[in-house]
């Protein structure tokens, strides 16, 4: 009986390891088909349009590859899927790129500097009038998200710290209902499109928003560094398609108006609402502008703030002993943090090619 059991266990283990191989992360190699994921957000809507209207296919064909661009409804899930190796690239906020894939050991490159939040994230109080009025109160937000970072920066600006308030982790959609429909929450940190509904509540006062910390909350398209190194065609195709799309959006032609209208309905709002969201999203409309932002020294300072916040909230992982644990590399070759563990890289080379018309 015991021998039989042992044999059974051995079989189970063999079967298990075969099964587990299929769960192995996507290994980098030369390949021709790629998967990229994004989720609904004002600054990322062009990804949906450029796929639906053949722009992605045109650029992928040009470099002899296939790029499948998928939209997931759950933002965090899309990043987790990317970090687990199911996608070669994903759209995310730069802070999440640091705390999710990079802190999880997945070497990630910021390929497209899409936009920064310029009012799209904000803090709204029902009774209070200033940031300092939150002292001693509960604040509802999605903890550890960009909202949390914004709150920390806001408190800092008023000479407070997180110890002065109580944060309540609240899912973004339920926060809207609870804030607008009842008095059960008083202070909320959120982002668009929820933020615009929250602001409409009678008597609500917006006390802080991301336009006060311009350039700090970046929304980017990231790809797996190894995949990109082995397949520069992926980088060229994505960057090429992106800037063709942005040029179309800003062309002022009837096609541009049509594209914006289509993106508005895809994002679940009307044209006016979408335009309002775009107005608080600073898009880098030309590759030259994106290159300038990515190569400016201010980026390193911003990322230092972001990584300090992330380390203080234990987001860099259990093993992280200091904020230097995860290295961040910039286009000029400088590294913030551990140079032997660079996991997040800002790349300007592909965007530069687009700016120089070499794609």
């Amino acid at each position: 009986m015991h021998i039989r059991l042992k044999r059974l266990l051995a079989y189970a283990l063999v079967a298990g390891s075969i099964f587990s191989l299929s769960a192995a992360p996507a290994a980098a190699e030369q390949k021709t088909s790629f998967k990229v994921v994004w989720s609904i957000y004002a600054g990322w809507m062009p990804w949906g349009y450029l796929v639906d209207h053949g722009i992605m296919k045109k650029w992928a064909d040009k470099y002899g590859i296939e790029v499948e661009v998928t939209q997931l409804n759950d933002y965090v899930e899309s990043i987790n899927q990317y970090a687990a190796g199911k996608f070669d690239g994903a759209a995310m906020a730069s802070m999440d790129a640091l705390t999710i894939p990079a802190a999880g050991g997945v070497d990630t490159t910021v390929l497209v500097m899409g936009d920064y939040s310029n009012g799209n994230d904000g803090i709204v109080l029902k009774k209070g009038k200033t940031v300092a009025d939150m002292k001693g109160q509960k604040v509802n937000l999605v903890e550890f998200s960009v909202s949390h970072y914004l709150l920390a920066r806001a408190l800092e600006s008023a000479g407070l710290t997180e110890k002065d308030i109580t944060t309540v982790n609240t899912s973004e959609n339920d926060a809207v209902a609870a804030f607008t429909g009842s008095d059960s929450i008083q202070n909320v940190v959120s982002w668009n499109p929820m933020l615009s509904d929250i602001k409409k509540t009678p008597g609500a006062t917006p006390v802080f928003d991301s336009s006060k910390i311009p350039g700090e909350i970046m929304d980017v398209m990231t790809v797996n560094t190894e995949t990109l190194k082995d397949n520069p065609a992926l980088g060229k195709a994505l960057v090429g398609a992106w800037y063709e799309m942005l040029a179309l959006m800003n062309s002022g032609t009837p096609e541009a108006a049509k594209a914006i209208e289509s993106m508005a309905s895809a994002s679940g709002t009307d044209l006016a609402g979408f335009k309002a969201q775009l107005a608080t999203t600073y898009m880098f409309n030309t590759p030259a502008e994106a290159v300038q932002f990515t190569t400016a020294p201010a980026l390193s300072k911003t990322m230092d703030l972001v990584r300090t916040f992330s380390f203080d909230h234990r987001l860099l992982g259990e093993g992280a002993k200091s904020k230097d644990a995860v290295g961040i590399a910039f286009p000029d070759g400088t590294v913030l943090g551990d140079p032997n563990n660079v996991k997040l890289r800002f790349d300007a080379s592909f965007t530069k090619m687009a700016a120089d018309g070499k794609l």
Partner: protein
Amino acid sequence: MRRIINVKPDPRSLALLGLAPFVGLLGLYVASSAVRLAANPGDKLLPPLSAMASTLSRLALEADARTGQMVFWADTAASLQRLGLAIAASVIIAITVGTILGLVPWAKALGNPLIAAISLIPPLALLPILFIVFGLDELSKVVLIAIGVAPFMIRDLALRIEQMPYELLIKAQTMGASTWQIIVRIVLPQMLPRVIDALRFSIGPAWLFLIAAEAIAATNGLGYRIFLVRRYLAMDVILPYVVWITLLAFAMDFALRLLSARLFPWARISTS
């Protein structure tokens, strides 16, 4: 006759056999984790057992710098408190309403369709309403769990009461028992063990609703922690928490079984 239905395992290896699937799953996990860790030593999806142990020891043995509490125990206490309140409320509601529905024909005609309908509503779909009516604090979480489990317990109890031999009630009445005496001396002693059985079946759903409520708005709790750290894929926290929840649920089930055997020894005579 040699048929698979007649081949019985050696009694001495019974315990081992029961353990085998667990060992198998553990082996599967370790193997899968090793494969992923070989590709990326920082992989978060399937962390090694050692990483889970060190995370758990930090959460359970060290005070959190910000709150000064031991996170693991604070979460457990918060969750158990919500669960306990909700279960206590559900039991009281179930006994009261179930007895009335089961015994009083008028109440049955009036209330049965309503309770049947309520028990079929998925409570999670009503969350926004619950949040607005009961606020985002403790009350809405307790109410969600109670709405999730009480209707089932009420229906179960009412059904059991209807199945009681009617002769018992007739006999009691011929001996002059009032309705109150019938409830206290005949119905409740027979039904309390059934309530505990129904409760045992409800523990699983109760945990489900608890975790769902904590995921949406909370400052502590087991479900809160799981959904909080899910944001950065900290499976080294999530997996130990899942095991802990399973253990707690198992312990509750076990305790209820013991309690039932202790308090109502007569209930076992007929069934065993």
